[in-house]
């Protein structure tokens, strides 16, 4: 009947795909950004350090 539903479905189908692609790229770029490497390595090891209490 009124175009609302079809427009919404069309938007869902097309926009959803681009959104998915953009999101995947952003995530992978973030994960592999060279300068983040150090922080990630540090974080991965940080849970293993013996610690004695809150830092403040």
């Amino acid at each position, binding site marked *: 009947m009124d175009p609302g539903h079809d427009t919404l479905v069309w938007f869902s189908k097309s926009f959803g795909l681009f959104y*998915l692609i953009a999101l995947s790229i952003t995530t992978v770029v973030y*994960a592999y950004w060279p300068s983040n490497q150090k922080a990630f390595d540090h974080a991965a090891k940080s849970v*293993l350090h013996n610690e004695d209490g*809150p*830092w403040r």
Partner: protein
Amino acid sequence: MIGQLTKAERQYALLILLGLALCGLIFGIAGKDDPLGIHGALIGVAALAGIFKVISVYYDPEPGDERLTRYYDDPTKFGIVLAMIWAVFGLFIGDWVAWLLVKPDFTFNAGWASFGRLRPVHTTSVLFGFGGNALIATSYYVLQRTSRARLPDQLSPWFVLLGYNLFCVLAVTGYMMGITQSKEYAEPEWYADIWLLVVWVVYFAIYLRTLARRKEPHIYVANWYYMAFILVIAILHIVNNLAVPVSFGSAKSYSLFSGVQDAMTEWWYGHNAVAFFLTAGFLGMMYYFVPVRAGRPIYSYRMSIISFWGITFFYMWAGSHHLHYTALPQWVQTLGMTFSLMLLIPSWASAANALLTLNGAWDKVRDDATLRFMMVAAVFYGITTFEGSFLAIRSVNSLSHYTDWTVGHVHAGALGWVAMITFGSIYTIVPWLWKRDRMYSPRLVEVHFWFALAGAVVYVFAMWNSGIIQGLMWRTYNESGTLAYSFVDSLIAMHPYYIARAIGGLLFLIGGIVGAYNIWMTIKTESKILPQSAVDAPEPALGGEAVLQPGE
């Protein structure tokens, strides 16, 4: 434990409890002709008990500032104990209802004991009671350690933990009285839902406030998962529970949505409760406790981030695979199926990450039942997510839907993944929290492990068999082109599998009881060989063999 509260916190606690008691009173009066009145009384009694407890310590000396040099673990300890109580209770009810399908007359001729009312008691007790308490308790622990910051205050963690348990008690007692919204995994009625929302907002605030005081700029990935769990559950909870109460004095409400919208909203919720409660939350647990217990950093930190966003994104679209071949528009079904298949990528990345972390520490996995719990959990997680994607395929789903296969799938996830990772994490955390050098009995951990594994395997195989047989019988035609079996034929064929399933559940329950006993004895028994130096626990150290239990 409440003695740790400062004077101001005790006053706030009293204020909150008085407010709660007032709410109880109002509901008790407004709902005096309704089951709501009983819940009003229950809320009032709970609040009064809290008031007495706080008053009893009100004039005790205040804790000194030296408390701020230690992490605040009292709520975590209490939460672990509550989680184990809920585990034993929920598993017991689960096995009870399993036997009800074998012997349907064990209902004492009473409404509260019938399958339909006890089934949500089981699901709520194990998912929200056991799982939820374990998540809250471990999240406090992990949050503080990874941020190197103490919880922001000492009252709000208690408010969240106890408030959450009040919600669980309201839910479970409500079902037995017949109070339910009928939405699966969102059965509690409007007033309990509002209360949970308040609790949940405070829970998230604790997270933000603690993270704001953290030492490292980067937030450790386990916290990402815990945060996604808290946040998304809040969104799901609000949307799915939109309803109009019949009156202020009535427990009953009517869902704002109807028919196909309601179905889509419910399974968008239902599937994402699996995703963000039973997956994201417990992945948070996994990403902290597997590395710590194994004494090795996570295999690939990058992979954990990529799978995080993958899970956060893909899961949200997958809910409609619960509604294949129904009155839901086909394009939504197809969308759900596609995303369910894509979900396999981040899911397997997470499972592989855990297993690869253990690669090179297999000797520890062999000797240490606690680590083995977590290893098996990761394997079950891999199997279950594969099965989930498989079942989301329309043609497979046409066979499996409405059958016991779904039940088997859910329990592969719940028993194999959720419960196993939780038991592993609890066995890791308990000796540290109570400053013991090991569990009371490592041998009983071993016993628990084998009971749990055997129980899960028996259960899942019984349900796979019964589900597939059921599905095939329903769709089999004879030579003359008519349906070969009546529904009753399929029911008779289920009988042996229902017995097998109940036995599998019993094994798992026995394991849970052994675990609860072991934990209780660890708490009760003072350890004789406490390391002298440690004011604090012998907490994770690189290559922490010292904390590993020889598994006999």
